């Protein structure tokens, strides 16, 4: 498999490199924005979606109560305003009166209540039901301990008001409502069509586009939703499902696609291309220790490994615009603090290891590092192996494991050191920090700290941004400096090509592709695409002057 892919890339590199770049062409579908999803969306049912492919389509078909602005702050979307009561234990959302479904019916608070309770219904078996576990009764209802959905703390007070009762104050709760699993749903539509309601002709949404066609495994087409408060200016969207990146790029170069994401290994070839853009993402890669396994129970050993890493090599090895990180909360998020963490200090790393009883790496057992099989993860792992050998004199055996088998392994019996990543579900540091609390299912380190847990819990309830950051700073010091059960490595960037014909494209750091303003014009004129990183609501809720569109490339 690897060999085959390598070969494809070599062949394509040769061919694409020698041919002049041809843009334009593709008269068919002019005005339609064409891009690639790379895979079939597993579902278009918001309650059930868990993956980026489904999200990329869904976020253009529907909207939630809130959305993001350019700085990923939560701003109004389906709701015009909200207030928190009872010291943050109650949140009341006021829906916009002009919200309409694609079949013309008004969007009501009842549609949100139905969707949220359906998300929590154990029969729905929604994997992301836990997004609402801070809502009163939600977890019990989902676990089957509470039979009456009426006791779940979500209720429509009237058509325009949704009230949520929380079991603890959660300052970022309105932020969570940006997420697709909490989009509203139509009870009548789902009752009529059952699980198949997401097919074209049945699907009813409240976003800028309607679902025009869905040829499974091949193409999803969206048409502008004329009933949306601000219908998209373009003629629609075609999402293809081209699996092979080389072919995707060949299609882009022929002008058959207007937008293409770049895989890391394709980036060097396109970095100087005029259509190339790069944008940091809220997605971080880290290596974790199994603190239950010797010798990683000793924090000095863990610190030594973390200090021995020169994280500056990753952008050079991986070519994807990676931003090295020693702390865990990624840049672009509240409480990001680059000064926290263990910087590259080989002498101190050696000192830590010697203090733990392994001077010069003598007596240190050969350790095993596991990672999921992929080109980028392999390059990163090999780089780490060399660095640890060089700096600490330890022998490291690498083992790559197929993805699903890998996930099983690290959630049951992780090796001494293992790799994983995390992408933000909502742009709040809580989403990154609560991963490593004692009760988190994502914490595979075998490490826990009551103080860390208390700091993260306190930060989730803290309304003052400065005080919140202080709490997270303290928690991050435990996570990345003193206890160091994980080694944050880098934050990823999204790299992509946009045709100069495209206007009004929105990509944010959560990897959303918002197409509500996109237009595909003829070639010529300003030969630069306008790529805006700003969320749609910046245009719509515009009491402030519209921001100058910013180029996505950093």
């Amino acid at each position, binding site marked *: 498999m690897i060999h*085959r892919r390598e070969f494809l890339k070599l062949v394509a590199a040769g061919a694409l490199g020698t041919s002049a770049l041809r843009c334009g062409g593709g008269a068919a579908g002019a005005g339609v924005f064409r891009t690639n999803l790379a895979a079939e969306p597993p579902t278009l049912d918001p309650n059930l979606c*868990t993956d980026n492919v489904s999200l990329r389509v869904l976020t253009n078909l529907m909207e939630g109560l809130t959305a993001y602005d350019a700085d990923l702050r939560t701003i109004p979307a389906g709701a015009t305003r909200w207030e928190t009561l009872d010291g943050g234990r109650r949140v009341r959302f006021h829906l916009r009166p002009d919200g309409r479904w694609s079949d013309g019916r008004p969007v009501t608070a009842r549609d949100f209540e139905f969707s949220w309770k359906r998300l929590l219904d154990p029969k*729905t078996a929604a*994997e992301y039901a836990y997004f609402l576990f801070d809502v009163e009764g939600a977890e019990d209802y989902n676990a089957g301990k509470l039979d009456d959905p009426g006791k779940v703390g979500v209720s429509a007070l009237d058509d325009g008001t949704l009230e949520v009762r929380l079991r603890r104050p959660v300052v970022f709760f309105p932020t969570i409502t940006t997420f697709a699993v909490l989009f509203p749903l139509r009870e009548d539509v789902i009752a009529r069509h059952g699980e198949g309601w997401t097919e074209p002709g049945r699907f009813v949404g409240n976003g800028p586009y309607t679902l025009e066609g869905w040829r499974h495994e091949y193409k999803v087409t969206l048409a502008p939703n004329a009933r949306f408060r601000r219908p998209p200016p373009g003629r629609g969207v075609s999402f293809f499902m081209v699996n092979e990146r080389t072919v995707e790029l060949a299609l882009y170069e*022929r002008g058959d696609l207007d937008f293409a994401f770049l895989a890391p290994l394709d980036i060097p070839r396109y970095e100087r291309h005029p259509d190339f853009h790069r944008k940091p993402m809220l997605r971080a890669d880290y290596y974790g220790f199994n603190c239950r396994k010797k010798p990683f129970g000793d924090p000095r050993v863990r610190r030594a490994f973390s200090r021995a890493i020169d994280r500056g090599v990753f952008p050079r090895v991986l070519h994807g615009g990676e931003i090295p990180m020693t702390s865990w909360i990624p840049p672009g998020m509240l409480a990001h603090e680059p000064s926290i963490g263990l910087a590259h200090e080989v002498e101190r790393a050696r000192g830590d290891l010697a203090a733990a009883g392994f001077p010069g790496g003598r007596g240190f057992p050969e350790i095993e590092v596991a990672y999921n099989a992929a080109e980028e993860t392999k390059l990163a792992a090999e780089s780490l192996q060399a660095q640890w050998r060089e700096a600490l004199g330890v022998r490291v055996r690498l083992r790559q494991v197929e*993805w699903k088998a890998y996930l*099983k392994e690290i959630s049951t019996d992780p090796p001494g050191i293992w790799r994983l990543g995390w992408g933000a579900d909502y742009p709040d540091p809580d989403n990154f920090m609560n991963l490593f609390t004692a009760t988190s299912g994502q914490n595979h380190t075998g490490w826990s700290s009551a103080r860390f847990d208390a700091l993260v819990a306190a930060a989730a309830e803290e309304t003052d941004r400065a005080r919140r950051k202080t709490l997270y700073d303290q928690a991050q010091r435990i996570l990345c400096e003193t206890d160091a059960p994980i080694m944050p490595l880098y934050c990823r960037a999204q790299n992509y090509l946009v045709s100069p014909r495209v206007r009004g494209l929105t990509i944010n750091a959560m990897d959303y592709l918002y197409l509500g303003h996109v237009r595909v014009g003829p070639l010529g004129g300003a030969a630069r695409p306008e790529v805006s990183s700003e969320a749609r609501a910046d245009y719509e809720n515009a009491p402030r002057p519209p921001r100058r569109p910013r180029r996505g490339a950093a």
Partner: protein
Amino acid sequence: MTRTVLGRLALGAVTLWVVITLTFLFLRVVPGGPFDRERRLPPEIEANVNAKFHLDEPLAAQYARYLSAVARGDLGPSFKYLGRSVNDVLRDTFPVSAHLGLLALAYGTMLGVAAGLAAGMLRGRLPDRLAMLGATVGISLPAFVVGILLILLFAHTLGLVPPALWEGPAHTVLPAFTLGLAPAAYIARLTRSGVLDVMSRPYIIAARAKGVGDARLALRHVLRNAILPVVTLFGPLFADLLTGSFVVEYIYSIPGMGRFYITAVQNRDYPLIMGVTIVYAALVILANLAVDLSYRWLDPRVKIDGKEVAP
């Protein structure tokens, strides 16, 4: 005759049951499950998901449930494509694979038989050498190499056909050619050896002596007798081509079922893996039966119930 066919069908059903059982068991041995994700699920949610798809039941119960559903023609829900059944998925994708496969089969057969016949009749001469060189290349080159080279030449450099996607007849040209090349090469080699074998038979010499022309000799006397080994190959070939090819569908972005041989396993989409396996196995069984039956028609000396063996 009817009895023989019914007997073969019954045997086929048993074969299918063995295939289903083995696949079912092997899948559960592979580590990692359909709902293992980067984000690990809280236990209560995992329990809900398992309950929804009956994964919380004992393996024997799951197996019994599955067998009884399959007997009713229900291949179950896909674990990956939520809300779609495996029947839906295969109904959407099988026709595409079959369409492409039939094109590839038709062209592969024509090319292979023509080349093999020419090579056999003109043994040792230039057409023979060229055809066998082509056949060796066709067998040796994997589809992903052929596919990419064809894209580069015909789509990228010459711009004659689209490089990928499945929009219209022009989009079928490259994938059908890629898919049909290896079968064409096999068929050419088999046809050639069949022709060589037949050419040395006395009746050919007799026909020549009677003054039968080359074309008539080739088509009427040689080909009909030389084609039997090729027909044997047709059974598995037919099943292979109709159920799609992972590589060809992947390279050309064709919405067929071939992709599931790999992706469904990667996703641990148990019912979908079972579904494609069953369809493939059933086609192999049926195609082999059809081939055996066709022998009788092609060569009256052959008795399919095994009482008499072809010379």
